[in-house]
């Protein structure tokens, strides 16, 4: 298990990051109040770590993930990747960054373009990043599909998303995210739309991938039990504030913040039957 104790091994760092959205203008006062999705948060993730971000809907956990892959830019504060600030990146700098950081989205039914075959979907990152030749790309895609458990990869090549189950679609989305062999993956509730038996298999897959490629993972979830199962460290986020960060075991065994305590208390389990 990796620990974040060594400063030199920090991969991702957020310093006092704030993200505000303008909400709709009030009719009479004319002012447009801001909604703070993130309120000056600090976070550091070590290389090779699986870091969990746990919170309820509207807590700012998804915004954090989107900031890290640069789908959004922070209103204030700075994000560092390998000690380089990334929130102002443009053009080729941004493109290079994007080859290192990838995201897995929540809804496998929305995250694949229905008009593209599986091969086209997984090829796209290689094409836009101009990696390899057409032949090596194809080979890479087959190999990646095998890695995510869609084997033989060739059999899935010319299939379309509508021909796959939810779990298979999410495997394709994982293949698309790892085909560039990024250093960092943001997984935003990758299993919340899937059945428990499918979800647990995907968790196992993510763990294998992390081991094989030595990737760092930010695992965003509302499910504390899933975070504990997957993660080395967990941060609990509430109303745009990170209320507590600790190792996964400690946060469950010795929660300090009242919100964490409440989350643990209401987590569904089989306590009623025992």
């Amino acid at each position, binding site marked *: 298990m990796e620990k974040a104790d060594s400063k030199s091994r920090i991969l991702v760092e957020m310093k006092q990051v704030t993200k505000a959205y303008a909400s709709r203008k009030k009719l009479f006062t004319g002012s447009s109040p801001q909604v703070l999705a993130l309120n000056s948060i600090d976070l550091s993730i070590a290389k090779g770590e699986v870091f969990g971000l746990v919170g309820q809907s509207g807590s700012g956990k998804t915004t954090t993930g989107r900031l890290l*892959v*640069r*789908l959004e830019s922070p209103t204030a504060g700075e994000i560092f990747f390998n000690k380089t600030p990334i929130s102002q990146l443009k053009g080729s700098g*941004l*493109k290079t960054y*994007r*080859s290192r*950081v*990838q*995201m897995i*989205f*929540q*809804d496998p039914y*929305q*995250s*694949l*373009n*229905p*008009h*593209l*075959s599986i091969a086209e979907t997984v090829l*796209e*990152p290689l094409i*836009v*990043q101009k990696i390899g030749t057409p032949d090596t790309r194809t080979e890479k895609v087959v190999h990646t599909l095998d890695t995510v458990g869609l084997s033989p990869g060739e059999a899935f090549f*010319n299939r*379309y998303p*509508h021909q796959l189950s939810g779990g298979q679609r999410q495997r394709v*989305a994982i293949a*698309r995210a790892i085909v*560039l062999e990024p250093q960092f993956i943001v997984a935003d509730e990758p299993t919340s739309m899937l059945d428990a038996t499918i979800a647990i298999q995907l968790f196992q897959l993510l763990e294998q991938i992390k081991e094989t490629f030595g990737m760092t993972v930010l695992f965003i979830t509302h499910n504390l039990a899933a975070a504990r199962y997957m993660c080395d460290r967990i941060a609990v986020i509430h109303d745009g504030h990170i209320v507590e960060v600790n190792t996964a075991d400690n946060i469950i065994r010795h929660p300090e913040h009242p919100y964490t305590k409440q989350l643990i208390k209401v987590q569904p389990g089989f306590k009623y039957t025992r």
Partner: protein
Amino acid sequence: MQNKYFWWRFYKGWRIFIENPLGKTGVIILSVFMIMAMASFFVPLIDPMYDPMTGIDPDIKLSTGPGLTHWLGTDNVGRDILAQLLEGAKVAFIVGLSSAFFSIVIGTLIGMIAGYTGGIIDAALMRFADIIMVLPSLVILLILASLFGQFNIWIIVFIIAILRWPAVSRVIRSQTLSLKHRPFIEASRVAGASHVRIVLRHIMPNVLPLAFLYMTFRVTSAILVEASLSFLGFGDPSQVSWGMMLQWVWKSGHMFQAPYWLIPPGLCISLLTLAFYMLGRAMDEVLDPRLRKEGQTG
């Protein structure tokens, strides 16, 4: 297009479409008109007197009713009405389809650009579209025609297209807006894809069905505009069309004397526009309900 999903959806859509009574009727009427348009190429080959524009029956000096040599009768200079009707079908297809095609190409491009870029470009393009949308196309065409004389049929087609794209672009824009933040588009952005690639590769295939739906409605309106223009005497004088036939009936004072001359072009205009309208309604059923709702707001 080697896009298998597109064809799969096309096939499924076609099944729903053809099982729909409106779609079925539309397709049948349309096939009849298509056969008519095809036939227009062959009729003058039978005898030069069946040429819709220049073929004059030497034995006839006045407009005569239906008979054996002229199944629907002749006009006042002895030209065959059926031949003109067939030629009119061809012209209606050319005018309707090409004008509709141009307007959806313009409308789809502008709609996708406006929806995808957003901000000031979006606002500018949409205000421009609003201005064009409120212009009455027939009046504009009449003014232009009276200023510059009678137009060639292709210029008419083009002007109709230019005046008719805004409605298409509004619909495509709202569809693009709803696609823009879909995770598969964001995934492509995260992979580093350029804006051009995202628009062409991810957004366009998803808005094309809607564009085709709007094309059928544009066909209807283009045919009607051309017919009105010709009837009012501002059409292309070198080209027979149904509107032109009506203009000739009126001009030669046969409105109430020659129903065999007046009714066929009028009926054809109504039936063909109706057929395209039915086609559009049936396609509407095919597209998913969510698209349908957004389509109506445009």
